[in-house]
């Protein structure tokens, strides 16, 4: 009875509308959930920009908003990389800033007065909602089941692997890049399916946007050609493929070359050569197919195939030759280190030193995508059922992304979407099978025999050739309600656990803005450690407008953003030599460092010291990287070996080597530290060692500021001595011990000329 009443809602046009509305509302809810789950940091702390790079993006955005687009484009930043300056306008990916700038102006036009900071903070969550929607579209292209898309969207909305880079306040390129990535792929699949130039052009357009937004666009640049190449190898060449790829490549390359930072790379660097090569290959194949359709002859066909292979080989050789001869730039370090995994460690310490360039251990995978990680292979397997072009794409994407994410932690980001999609495919197929209300009628004896002794009928011989083993039998369906109930309930509970997991991970791991640290008091209450902002505020208020701050490059962006003071080096590590100079100044004796600091007009030196609080990410722990990077440039002035004891330990207590004890970094970190402790109990809580009671003495710099928990220490670089003495003796005079009168020594005495 009820069924008949409900009928009109689920059948015919009304039914379609109902489902449409349902779908829409579900999507909106998913987006809401995605945004909401990223607001932990804002609620728990405040609306603040997070760790390092976002601070530069924020600063750049402010510049854009206040000075307009063209000034931004030609921006020469004289407050970083002192005294070299940075051609910022030409060396960044403007997509992010331009996006938020556009949003800002749009809101202003709508007379909604909103602070640019809040736009920057909330940009990532906003785009995550869009990403969910894009994933929905992408998945719908993959499967016929209506539920797959929604599931994928839901997964994408709350998967920690994506949340890690897109919580409110992490205002980084990835914030919008992932949306663009997924949406570009969606458009690509659409284009391939329809073989329409319009979708191809749209794809190119969004590819251009992606290029303007994130360096990771190279992933698309290589994935799409790979997809095409695989299809061609599978003998799936078709006019659709030809049209879509050529449209995408031509327009997309032009679009990407409009970004100053990219410029001529698409035709000059190896990363982009695969796209070019596949483009050429497609022309060849297309030509051959055209001729073949005209001249249907077997031998001629083989001849043509040979010809194709030949030309392809020749052009490939040509590419290699050009690369060797240097016309085409070889792999850039970051990208190269993806293939030759040992490369960076040896040749580019500055890349190896970044934590997010480390390989990924399995717990990270499970942490970031809980049960998806084992649904993932199942989904990929399902793609082999009906292996159409788009399923091939999924397979290729999965394998490539899994490899990359294994090599670099940060590339987990590119893996997450496909995992969500694949897992959604798996789950949806399960649900579709087990949520069917109507059971198949009980089979008769004949059918039972046929099924039970399962002699494969001759018709299935064909299926043996291709098609999966698990799909030889015809689909029957689930008989008992019990099995349906059990499977569905289990699955539901897993999904619930997944939701709990995501929430837990997000709130515990990914929601702290590393600028402000939170710690638990013994009584469990939260205690905020705000040393960074304290110190940066001090700089902003107590130092000259153009006081140059020397610090290790990790803090460059923050100093620029929060303290608004010129820095020597920052997180945009474009000049290894300059960074090595700072490394040398930090790791050398004062007499060596002082001239360097004078030459670079350094006014203040900032070091991060966690010894008191047990904050492990401090400069002494990063020190060896400074030494290594400096050693790369001055191998016989700075030696890593000298910082290890004879037994090969890296120590900071009495056992530390002389080089270590005399290095500026060590002195600045532990200067006056032991005055905090009663004698004999001075200890470093990070390294967990006891320190000698007499701390180091500083001659060329003087302590200017130390934050509440000693995390940040700022030292002022002294001017030359007014009376022309060297600073060491001047300092000793200040300390009150008289200069010993030079005893007239035997032998010839040095006469004063002039």
């Amino acid at each position, binding site marked *: 009875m009820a069924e008949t009443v409900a009928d009109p809602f689920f059948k015919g046009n009304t039914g379609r509308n109902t489902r449409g509305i349902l779908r829409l509302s579900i999507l909106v809810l998913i987006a809401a959930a995605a945004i909401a789950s990223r607001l932990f940091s804002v609620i728990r702390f405040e609306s603040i920009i997070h760790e390092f790079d976002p601070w530069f993006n924020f600063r750049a955005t402010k510049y854009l908003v206040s000075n307009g687009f063209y000034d931004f484009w030609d921006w020469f930043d004289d407050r970083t990389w002192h005294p070299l300056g940075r051609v910022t306008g030409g060396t960044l990916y403007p997509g992010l800033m331009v996006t938020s700038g556009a949003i800002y102006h749009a809101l202003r036009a709508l007379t909604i007065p909103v602070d640019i900071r809040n736009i920057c903070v909330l940009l990532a969550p906003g785009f995550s909602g869009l990403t969910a929607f894009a994933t929905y579209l992408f998945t719908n292209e993959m499967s016929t089941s209506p539920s797959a898309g929604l599931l994928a969207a839901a997964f994408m909305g709350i998967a920690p692997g994506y949340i890690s880079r897109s919580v409110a306040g992490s205002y980084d390129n990835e914030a919008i890049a992932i949306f663009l990535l997924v949406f570009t792929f969606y458009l690509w699949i659409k284009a391939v399916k329809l073989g329409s130039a319009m979708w191809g052009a749209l794809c190119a357009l969004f590819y251009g946007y992606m290029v303007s937004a994130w360096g990771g666009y190279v992933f698309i640049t290589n994935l799409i050609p790979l997809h095409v190449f695989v299809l061609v190898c599978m003998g799936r060449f078709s006019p659709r493929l030809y049209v879509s790829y050529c449209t995408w490549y031509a327009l997309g390359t032009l679009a990407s070359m409009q970004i100053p930072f990219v410029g001529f790379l698409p035709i000059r660097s190896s990363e982009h050569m695969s796209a070019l090569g596949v483009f050429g290959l497609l022309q060849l194949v297309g030509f051959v197919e055209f001729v073949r359709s005209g001249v249907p002859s077997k031998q001629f066909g083989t001849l043509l195939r040979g010809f194709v292979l030949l030309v392809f080989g020749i052009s490939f050789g040509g590419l290699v030759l050009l690369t060797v001869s240097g016309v085409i730039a070889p792999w850039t370090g970051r990208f190269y280190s993806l293939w030759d995994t040992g490369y960076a460690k040896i040749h580019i310490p500055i890349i190896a030193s970044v934590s997010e360039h480390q*390989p990924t251990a*399995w717990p990270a995978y499970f*942490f970031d995508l809980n*049960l998806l990680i084992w*649904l993932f292979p199942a989904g990929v397997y399902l793609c*082999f059922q009906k292996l159409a072009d788009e399923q091939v794409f999924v397979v290729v994407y999965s394998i490539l992304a*899994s*490899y990359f994410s294994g090599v670099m932690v940060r590339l987990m980001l590119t893996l997450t979407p496909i995992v969500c999609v694949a897992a959604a495919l*798996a789950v949806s197929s399960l649900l579709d*099978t087990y949520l069917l209300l109507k059971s198949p009628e009980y089979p008769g004896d004949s059918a039972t025999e046929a099924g039970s002794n399962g002699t494969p009928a001759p018709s299935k011989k064909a299926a043996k050739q291709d098609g999966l083993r698990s799909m030889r039998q015809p689909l029957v369906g689930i008989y008992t309600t019990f099995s349906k109930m059990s499977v569905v309930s289990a699955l539901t509970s897993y999904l619930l656990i997944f939701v709990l997991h995501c929430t837990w991970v997000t709130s515990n791991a990914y929601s702290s803005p590393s600028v402000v640290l939170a710690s638990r008091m013994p009584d469990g209450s939260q205690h905020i450690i705000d040393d960074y902002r304290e110190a940066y505020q001090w700089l902003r208020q107590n130092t000259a407008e153009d006081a140059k701050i020397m610090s290790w490059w990790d803090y460059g962006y923050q100093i620029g953003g929060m303290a608004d003071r010129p820095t020597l080096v920052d997180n945009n590590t474009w000049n290894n030599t300059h960074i090595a100079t700072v490394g040398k100044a930090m790791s050398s004796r004062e007499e060596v460092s002082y001239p360097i600091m004078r030459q670079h007009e350094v006014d203040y030196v900032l070091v991060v010291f966690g010894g008191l609080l047990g904050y492990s990410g401090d400069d002494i722990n990063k020190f060896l990287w400074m030494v290594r990077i400096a050693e790369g440039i001055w191998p016989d002035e700075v030696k890593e070996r000298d910082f290890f004891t004879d037994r090969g330990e890296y120590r900071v207590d009495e056992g530390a080597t002389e080089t270590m004890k005399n290095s500026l970094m060590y002195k600045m970190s532990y200067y006056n530290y032991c005055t905090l402790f009663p004698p004999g109990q001075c200890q470093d809580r990070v390294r967990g060692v006891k320190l000698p009671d007499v701390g180091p003495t500083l001659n060329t710099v003087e302590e200017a500021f130390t934050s509440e928990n000693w995390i940040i220490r700022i030292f002022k670089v002294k001017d030359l001595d007014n009376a022309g003495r060297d600073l060491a003796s001047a300092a000793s005079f200040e300390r009150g011990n008289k200069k010993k009168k030079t005893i007239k020594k035997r032998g010839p005495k040095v006469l004063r000329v002039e």
Partner: protein
Amino acid sequence: MHFLKGLLLSLLPAAALAAKKPVVDKFSQFHTKALASTPLKLDDSVYAKLTAAPRNYSVVVLLTAMEARFGCALCREFQPEWDLLSSSWTKGDKKGDSRLVFGTLDFVDGKNTFQSLGLQTAPVLLFFQPTVGPHAIPDNGPIRYDFTSGPQSAEQVHSWIARYLPDRPHPQVNRPINWVRGIAITTTILATITFLSVAWPYMVPIIQNRNVWAAISLIAILLFTTGHMFNHIRKVPYVTGDGRGGVSYFAGGFSNQNGLETQILAAIYGLLSFATISLALKVPRITDPKTQQVAVIVWSGVIFVMYSFLLSVFRMKNGGYPFWLPPFF
């Protein structure tokens, strides 16, 4: 008066020569030896003679222990590079303009030297600057090159030496082209091509078989997503022993893992996804209700247990992870 001066002038170089004579001979004789075979095979006495001051030439001596019983892998790895470097250097500068002599002192021939230098490790490269002559430098203690960062290539050592020999010729290291390898490669390539061309018809079904490809891609994915690349890059141990003589399969710590651990994980994932696949694809194709019922229960049971086990393993890795499923706590 003038006559006297002239006399003096004429005498001076002679005197200088007389003063130099012995050392000159020393270098030339060593150099001629080196031309015959380099690096010079030294023993205690020759080493002492070679490195004795005054010397107007530079010496590079590799102190090594080649014999198997010392088990110095580094020595054996570095030896060919060293020979290559010295030979190509000596060839490159037959006239001995760089005034550099290469020598090798094996532990068996030079125990006393090793003891006098107080060397515990090998190989060690010692570089002696000249004490007299144009390139003389005041402190004549040898400069030591420790192989702290693993085995070095000839080029690296070459650049290190060159740094101490300014304004002197630095003959480049030229590696002999490895013909054998090239030939081997070409032959293998040809062989494969022929093999393919012959076996093509038989291989086509395999290559075009969907199951094969599915298997390959699934295995690849499973390997990568269980951190195989981590093992590859960080060269982690396969298993580590716990304190009590047994082996611990799971390394402690969130960002650390064992070789075996990843394989166990791969197995778990594989099983889980296989169960999922069977539930999704195989089970609905079972025509007999009872079999199907059993299959459903079995597979969902497998998933349940495995997943709970997985969660427990993860709790092991990451303390304070709050979620779990029975039966594993």
